[in-house]
């Protein structure tokens, strides 16, 4: 059986869900953040695959944007986590429940 677009998308979906699962079940902010990166990467994979099989480059350009944005987001996010850690000495989400209800 030849590997087609479905295979790539299946991998992409599974990777996406792994990332999502990470966000949901992990409690360390950094790991949660890694989960988010996984989700973005899953999207990247899907885009590249589609780009290939749709035979145009738009998808790849989009991936380029996503990677850049992800980098920017990571930078801001990590800075934020660091600032928080300095203040609160924790990266556990369960410790971040000042505001609720």
């Amino acid at each position, binding site marked *: 059986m030849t590997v087609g677009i479905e295979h790539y998308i299946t991998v992409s979906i599974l990777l996406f869900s792994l990332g999502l699962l990470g966000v949901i079940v992990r409690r360390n902010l950094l790991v949660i953040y890694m989960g988010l990166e996984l989700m973005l990467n899953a999207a990247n994979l899907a885009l590249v695959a589609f780009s290939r099989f749709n035979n145009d480059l738009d998808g790849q*350009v989009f991936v380029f944007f996503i990677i850049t944005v992800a980098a*920017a987001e990571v930078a801001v996010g990590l800075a934020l986590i660091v600032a928080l850690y300095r203040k609160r000495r924790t990266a556990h989400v369960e410790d971040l429940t000042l505001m609720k209800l």
Partner: protein
Amino acid sequence: MAQLPDILFYVFGFLTLACGFLVVLNPFSTNPVTSAMFLVLTIASLAGLFVLLHAFFLAAVQILVYAGAVMVLFLFVIMLLDLPAEEKRKVRTAWVILGVISVGGIVAISLRALAQSAPVSEQTPALEGSTIPLGRLLFTQYLLPFEIISLLLLVAMVGVILLSKKDLK
């Protein structure tokens, strides 16, 4: 009779997912460093898949930017904060189950959708993700988003400086 690219797809695909799984749920270690390392591996495997898809430039970018820059940033922060291994606290299995159920739902629906409406693909994909056409597209049709991305990076820069500056005031 499987061809080489197909075999490679299975190899990289498996690697991607397995490493991805270990990022998220490593049964042996909850240390963020481990997660980060497996994330690097995931990204690398993804780059492999990109190559299989003839997206050579992106594969390079993936390695350089992601594995190189972003993940280094992650590790740097982990080291900087000297984070201990994650939760010593009780793992709430109920929580995990709930999470798995909802995620599983999404996966199930997505896969079913995929199965029901398989995307039509060209039989002979001829696209080459090389630098020149990509660059041309980026600086013509996609010029505006590209410029906005630069703005975004500026914002991120300002933000990072503001958030991590040691002295207040």
